[in-house]
């Protein structure tokens, strides 16, 4: 069987069933036995943690100021011990309800204090619960812009305001995506254009407008939030979509049972992601509030055949 891009996502645990169904290659040897693995257990990590790779975390729908946000925040900080990520991407809904000065403290500065104190940058996108003026809040690194891009090594991130995708923003994306010479182009935004969520589901209007741009401009991976759970979608038109909207809120049992789009879903607890991009591979690990790794794998960059083999 020819090794295609679609066949290369490697998975663990219960995902192996889906993996087999999609002709995926098994995960590398070091990651065997991942179900049950915990943060803090160095043998559990599926991330290669190599020098000069791009390491970051993904959190979404965080701004509750509640217990779960603080618990995930602590785990996120603890994870730095074994995986020194350089920055954190935020998938929007950075602040629910009040958006006053004390809310910034309670819903952002305090739960992530240790991370902020370590000078790790957060890069936020706006969600439908966010005051657009959050873009002027310096720790969100939006530089006053509703949509923007930033580059880290071989990776360029395109941060979109999916709450208001007016033509001017689409025109901007049409301009910057093709111009980017980054090896990896990773858009992220609040609303998922593919989702198995019962509450919201896929944002089809948005998909109509921006999916062709993703497809035609070498996008490999897209991150989103909005749905209060974790979902990894089966590749859609060759692109891997992740929804991480459960880093504080949780919509328990909201992933449609039997959804043909779901490669892996987790809607029973809060979660966050750790991601590492090393050359032509993107490694990811999704961690529940309990510390348990609930999903992990490798996404190859388009046009590459990295030849991941079991035991390699």
């Amino acid at each position, binding site marked *: 069987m020819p090794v295609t891009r679609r066949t290369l996502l490697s998975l663990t645990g219960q995902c192996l069933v889906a993996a087999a169904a999609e002709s995926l290659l098994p995960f590398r040897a070091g990651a065997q036995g991942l179900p049950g693995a915990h943060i803090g257990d160095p043998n559990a990590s599926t991330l290669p943690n190599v020098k000069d790779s791009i390491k970051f975390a993904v959190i979404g729908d965080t701004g509750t100021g509640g217990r779960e946000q603080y618990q995930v925040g602590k785990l996120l900080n603890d994870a730095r011990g074994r995986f020194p990520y350089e920055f954190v991407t935020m998938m929007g809904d950075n602040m629910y309800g009040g958006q006053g*000065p004390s809310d910034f403290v309670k819903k952002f500065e305090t739960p992530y204090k240790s991370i902020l104190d370590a000078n790790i940058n957060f890069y936020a996108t706006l969600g*439908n619960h966010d005051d*657009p003026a959050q873009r002027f*809040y310096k720790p969100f690194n939006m530089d006053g812009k509703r949509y923007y891009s930033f580059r880290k090594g071989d990776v360029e991130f395109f941060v979109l305001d999916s709450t208001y995708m007016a*033509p*001017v923003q689409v025109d901007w994306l049409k301009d910057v995506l093709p111009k980017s010479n980054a090896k990896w182009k990773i858009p992220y935004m609040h609303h998922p254009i593919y989702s198995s969520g019962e509450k919201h589901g896929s944002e*089809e*209007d948005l998909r109509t407008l921006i999916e062709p741009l993703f497809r035609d401009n070498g996008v490999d991976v897209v991150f989103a939030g909005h749905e209060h759970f974790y979902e990894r979608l089966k590749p859609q038109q060759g692109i891997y979509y992740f929804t991480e909207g459960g880093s504080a809120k949780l919509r328990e049992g909201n992933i449609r049972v039997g959804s043909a789009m779901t490669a892996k879903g987790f809607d029973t607890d809060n979660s966050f992601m750790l991601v590492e991009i090393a050359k032509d591979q993107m490694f990811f690990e999704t961690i529940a509030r309990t510390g348990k790794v609930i999903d992990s794998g490798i996404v190859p960059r388009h046009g590459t055949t990295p030849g991941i083999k079991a035991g390699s």
Partner: protein
Amino acid sequence: MNAYFAVTRFALAGALLPLLADHTMAQTPRRADQGVAQRQAENPNANVQAEALAEFQQRIQKYLDLRMELSRKLKPLSPTPNPADLAARQENLAAAIREARKNAKPGDMIPTRVATQIRTTIAEDFRRRNPDTKRAVFNEVPERIRPVINKTMPDSAALATVPPLLLNNLPRLPDNLQYRFMDRDIVLLDGDTRLIVDYILNVLPPH
């Protein structure tokens, strides 16, 4: 400002008719005359609509000029690490705009003809939607609140997403003014201050 403004096919036809007529008349006057007359007969409202959109454009520009002038007198909204400072700048600007527009009333920004066009565009958009995408539009649209000019959108209300394909067909706005749904109404929202600048009532079907 022109770059910000969507000229709908309808309005574009109206705006271009005189130019088209000038250009073609120089070459084949009789045929151009006939063409213009025929188009005007087919769509006599095109020029009126183009004028209404131009009026909308001018009013928006006037609002932006006012906001710019007020911003200059205050601390402008710019990146700050201090949320209290950000809130103060935002509130000061909102207060200044409120004061300057204290007599503003519905329709001051959106001319009646443009409001009608927006209404029609939204109705057409909803007609083409299937029940699932309709449901998606109404998801998180704040309910049971009525827009009031110069009031801010409440913090507790999510900024419901206006469908991008619909936005494509509405008259374009500059980046810091936005259309947002509120119950069954559509508001023109200042994206920096969350002030309601104008609104049109009952544009959305019951949901």
